[in-house]
């Protein structure tokens, strides 16, 4: 693994492989002990589109986009939200006062308020697993093989190869957030 300051963790999601089984959500909730009723990742539904009989339905799994230019970080009044050297957007729970300004600023609704702890929380891309060389729980468990992760700076990583050979988009590109979750459809 490359040193932390040269890594750029990202994800590529092949939406046509997603079957809406929500195993990624279950895996995440167990791995990260997410409070009941809250979610760090999700499966969105686009459609049905078209007219009968040529109908389409697309699933769009997602989680925190770990934006290069994170609006949540910009508005945080205490510096609790920070960007690690490898690009992951994380929260220092000691500094978070639970003002929820970041939740207003995130266009992806990727954050939730943990009432029990009084802090805001979200996907860490399983930083604790990445740091020991394991894949994020949602990626590891994905039944259809829709979720891929890796170092965007490493041209030989799985994500880099996928993105090099497939057309891809990001969500709300016009927001200028430069998300690091890429969608291949």
């Amino acid at each position: 693994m490359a040193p932390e300051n040269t890594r750029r963790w990202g994800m590529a999601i092949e939406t046509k492989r997603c079957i809406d089984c929500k195993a990624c959500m279950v895996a995440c909730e167990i791995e990260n002990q997410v409070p009941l009723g809250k979610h760090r990742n999700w499966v969105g539904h686009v459609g049905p589109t078209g007219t009968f009989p040529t109908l389409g339905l697309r699933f769009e799994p997602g989680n925190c986009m770990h934006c290069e230019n994170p609006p949540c970080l910009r508005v945080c009044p205490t510096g609790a939200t920070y960007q690690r050297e490898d690009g992951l957007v994380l929260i220092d729970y000691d500094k978070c006062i639970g003002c929820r300004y970041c939740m207003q600023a995130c266009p992806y609704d990727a954050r939730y308020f943990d009432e029990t702890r009084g802090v805001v929380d979200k996907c860490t891309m399983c930083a604790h697993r990445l740091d020991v060389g394991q894949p994020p729980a949602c990626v590891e468990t994905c039944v259809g093989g829709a979720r891929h992760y890796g170092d965007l700076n490493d041209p030989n990583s799985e994500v880099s190869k996928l993105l090099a050979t497939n057309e891809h988009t990001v969500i709300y590109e016009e927001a200028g957030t430069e998300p690091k979750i890429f969608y291949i459809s």
Partner: protein
Amino acid sequence: MENPEWGILVVNYLFLAGVSAGAFAISSFATYIGGPHFRRVARIGALIAPWPVMVGVGLLVLDLGRPLAFWHLFMVVQYASPMSIGSWLLTGFVVLSLVYAALWLPAPLNNLLRVPTHPRALPHFTRWTPLTPQTIRRARAILAALGFPLSLGIGVYTGILLGAVPSRPFWNTPMLAQLFLFSAMSSGTATVLLITALLGTRHETGFEEERRLLVSTDLVLIILEVFMLIPFLLHHALSTWSSASSIELILGGEFTLWFWIGVILLGILLPLAIEGYELFPVVLREGATRYSLALSAASGVLVLVGGFVLRFVFVYAGQVSHFLPVVAR
């Protein structure tokens, strides 16, 4: 309406901070016009200013997930975070407005304005030297001058807090800061107008001048508000899909009645009509302002109701607005 993250406590805070900012601004304005006619406006504005914002900040701290961790706000200055800048601004404003209020204490309470002139007098308050009237006047003038931009800053900040969030299209327009500023100034002026009307004493010298100052200032501020709301609606309507869709929340959507009845009718049109009626003889040069306690109380209360509903509509509707398209989860 789904349960928004920022609820009624935040609405109250934005409203109360606005009242304080407006009360301070009208007080320092009156201080600078000077003369005996406007002393009561200056004093009442000054005596009111610190309290609503302090209650508001208290509510804001209670709204935090970890109220006792609020001090983290003051460990750092985050230049890009309106809330961080606002926290420092509020602290400065509260301290300054408390000192300013003390300087406007009426007799005999102004007897409390003393400074220790000798180190040995320090533990004995009675031995402190009372401030001379000249020192008090100078201090008031200095604090009014320093506090005026600070109070405008508080008024603008309450709008920037919401307006600086691109992912909420309903909020994300530069008009919001000005709208909240004018609304704050108007709310503060209306509070002073209400209190002076309740205190009455038509016999006191300068009552007519005082009514003219307060009613005409408030009238101008309400008109400025109207000319912030018009571009607000137009710019949204003529902007991107997300932006144009967001104002449907007040143009047929779930906040339509709140906005058009609460903000426009009760908060703007009725006070405009009342204050216009009060000032009309002056405009025609046919005599003094029309005054009755009922009219003044009505316009003051209506402006405050409108200011509160304005913040309610913006805080709640903004949190429903979203970049489009939204993918259902």
